[in-house]
């Protein structure tokens, strides 16, 4: 796109995270939450399961259909979990963190996620990123990574950028105006109030995580007296500005860098500032470097044209197969919601056979007993490829369409789509894990539906 705009040329070398065609804010949120929590048994609330779930996003796929409820079901948690959605502000993630911190004694899972549409040739195309981060907040425990020490929040209707409901893209105003008129006055003021309330000086802050571009972040840090605090650069360099998820990604990076006892100051920005002071606890010493691992596990997208197609910015002719009517029978989707959203099959109490979908009669030819299956969650299991093909004829957003018979680790079989894969990469016997993704879209009626897919483990 360098031919279209000179400013873009300056930023031509770099990396940003791009969601695959079958990912959106909701699917990324599921993935981040699973990474945060580890496997769920699918049984009604265990001791450490969240009691409350906050889904924080400016790009939730549905303007009105509860994403937090879908997220909760995809994680296999009970309907009794309190579900909330925070939207419409880049401070949705930090707002969620603050809300969770104020609810003393409650275990809350905050999932902040954004898949940010950008116009071709825009500066945002190069600086935004698609990502999700999840954090579990609750009563103190020996394994805790950090404690929230103080919070200070201020709103300011400074329209640095905006997006009307239903609009496709953000509209951004001049960066220099934003930096000089708002950020380098608003943030330092909020930080000063925060530190005053906490009773510590700026020199005691070891890590500063501010949701702004590198150059602006430096100006803000200097203006706050936090110039010598450590600032992470990999998140913006390798991922990009992931909207509501950015502050939590930056916090995650700080926690992967911090020593026990060190102070971390997090500043989320979005028509205001959420300033949060945290202290790292002993748990950071053996912290699992999940952010570093996630950034390292990337796949390259070499085709800009395919990227445009996946973002809906290029109307590619996929032929008559793509005309297929994808109508959803919603009464069926509701009746089978546990199987579909929770990837929950059945385990026969008589013969132990695991099967998907769950059925009235056991699939084991030696058993076939009636009404003996207990729910059995397969999402956190794994499997191996028994057969597969690369279908060039089927409609696929990213040909070839790869699918095959997957044998679950605990037994059972399912014909599944395999995602995050290109031609020639799959073999029989490859190990797979399962991910929650967009299955397809009903363009005639405007409905997106989801299911689980296999991907190489």
């Amino acid at each position, binding site marked *: 796109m360098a031919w279209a705009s000179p400013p873009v040329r300056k930023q031509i070398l770099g990396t940003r995270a791009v969601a695959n065609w079958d990912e959106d804010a909701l699917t990324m949120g599921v993935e981040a939450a699973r990474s945060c929590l580890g496997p769920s048994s699918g049984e009604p609330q265990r001791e450490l399961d969240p009691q409350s779930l906050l889904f924080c996003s400016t790009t939730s796929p549905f303007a009105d259909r509860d994403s937090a409820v879908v997220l909760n079901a995809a994680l296999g948690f009970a309907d009794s979990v309190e579900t909330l959605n925070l939207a419409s502000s880049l401070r949705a993630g930090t707002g969620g963190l603050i809300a969770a911190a104020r609810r003393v004694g409650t275990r809350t899972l905050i999932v902040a996620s954004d898949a940010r549409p950008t116009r071709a040739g825009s500066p945002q195309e190069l600086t935004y990123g698609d990502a999700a981060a999840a954090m579990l907040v609750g009563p103190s425990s020996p394994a805790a990574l950090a404690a929230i020490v103080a919070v200070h929040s201020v709103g300011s209707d400074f329209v640095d950028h905006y997006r009307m409901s239903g609009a496709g893209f953000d509209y951004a105003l001049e960066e220099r105006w934003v930096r000089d008129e708002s950020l380098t006055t608003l943030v330092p003021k909020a930080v000063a109030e925060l530190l005053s309330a906490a009773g510590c000086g700026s020199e005691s802050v070891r890590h500063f995580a501010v949701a702004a571009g590198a150059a602006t972040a430096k100006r803000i840090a200097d203006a706050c007296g936090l110039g010598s605090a450590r600032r992470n650069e990999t998140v913006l360099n390798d991922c990009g500005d992931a909207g509501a998820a950015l502050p939590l990604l930056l916090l995650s990076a700080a926690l992967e860098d911090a020593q026990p006892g060190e102070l971390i100051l997090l500043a989320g920005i979005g028509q205001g500032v959420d300033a949060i002071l945290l202290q790292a606890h002993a748990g950071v010493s053996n912290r699992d470097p999940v952010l570093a691992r996630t950034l390292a596990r990337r796949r390259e997208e070499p085709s800009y044209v395919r990227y445009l197609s996946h973002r809906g910015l290029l109307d590619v002719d996929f*032929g*008559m*197969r793509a*005309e*297929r009517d*994808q109508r*959803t*029978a919603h009464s*069926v*989707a509701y009746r*089978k919601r546990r*199987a*579909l959203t929770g990837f929950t099959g059945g385990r026969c109490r008589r013969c132990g*056979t695991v*099967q*998907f*979908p769950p*059925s009235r009669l056991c*699939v*084991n*030819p030696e058993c076939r007993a009636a009404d003996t299956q207990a729910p059995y969650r397969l999402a956190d299991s794994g499997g191996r490829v*028994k*057969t*597969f*093909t*690369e*279908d*060039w*004829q*089927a*409609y696929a957003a990213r040909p*070839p*369409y790869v*699918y*095959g*018979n997957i*044998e*679950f680790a605990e*037994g*059972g*079989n*399912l*014909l*599944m*789509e395999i995602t995050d894969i290109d*031609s020639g990469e799959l073999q*029989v*016997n490859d190990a797979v894990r399962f991910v929650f993704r967009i*299955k*397809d879209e009903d363009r005639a009626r405007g409905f997106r*539906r989801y*299911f689980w897919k296999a991907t190489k483990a």
Partner: protein
Amino acid sequence: MASGIKDKVVIAGMGCSRFGERWSCGPDDLMVEAFDEAIGDAGLERDRIEAAWLGVFFDEQSTGKSSLPMSMALRLPNIPTTRVENLCATGTEALRGAVYAVAAGACDIALAMGVEKLKDTGFGGLPERTKGTFEDLYLPSSTAPGAFAQLASAYAERYKITMPELKRAMAHISCKSHENATRNPKAHLRNRITEQQVLDAPAVSYPLGVLDCCGVSDGAACAIVTTPAIARSLGKRDLVSVQALQLAPSNGVEMGHQSWDGTHTLTTPLAAQRAYREAGILNPREQIDLIEVHDCFSITELVLMEDLGLSDLGRAPHDVLDGRYDRDGSIPCQIDGGLKCFGHPIGATGLRMAYEIYLQLLGRAGDRQLRARSGRGPSIGLTHNLGGIPNRNIASVSILGLLAA
């Protein structure tokens, strides 16, 4: 105690339309074309038919629902008509209805008609269809080639054969069928092809290329069946009788249980064993003179040789390349050109297979006529259909033979 269908019902006459991209024909034209031949072959009047079965699969792309399209196209005299559908085994299912009605003594003369008009969809390939309101929510939107292609990856892995070796055997299968179709004026494709052309053909679904896949075409075929006594009263001397008609559908094991390894069809061996028992065949490899099997894709035919018990497990590639199933081999397969050269008008295919066996047994197959090892004509033939996909299907096996005098 049931004794099976063997020799209770014979074929009085058969008809088969030319298969192909019949742009100027609708399903009614195709039915009339096949029916006219069958009535002439049987030597009886239309109004002597007392019941009829219609097999058509993609009704939403052609005829619409129920058996009425046949009753109306043929102006049958308000006799009982039934529409049947069992995926790609639909044609054989229609035959089954007609045969059972005559065997039960419910009527004397019955018609089985199979028709499919696939070329009104507006594009090449099979039309997209729902797999069920629930199934659409969790199954991949697989295509027929994609579903069957999977047999190859699992087969190669299990029997430790390299993909290039397997593809050579698959290519031989396609070439053999094309060679046979050069002698068949009713086939859609009648050109010779080479193994190299098959190997070089554009990819459809790994590892299948264009020439590993049967085409999409239109066609109809039908059979008029009756009792041996009535057939003789029509002046018939050599009679082709139904000696076995068996089905074996999946019940979910392949889809959902770990016991299926993906290298074969679970159902075909079951249908075949039942059919051999029903027909009194103890040694299929010796006793069956010719076979018409469901070669929707080359890999399917390969695997079916083992599933029908004609090749040992893991040995089909060798036997194929050895020529066992070629025209001059010991068990000619697809002597008429098969699905590969006729295409697969789904409702018609099972009856088109029966049509070729019927002609061969009566010595009326012209340039394609086979001689058995004994020097006489063939006396027993087998048809096989596989409706659906390896994961979830209906296998049908029929055995037709010359009625002993």
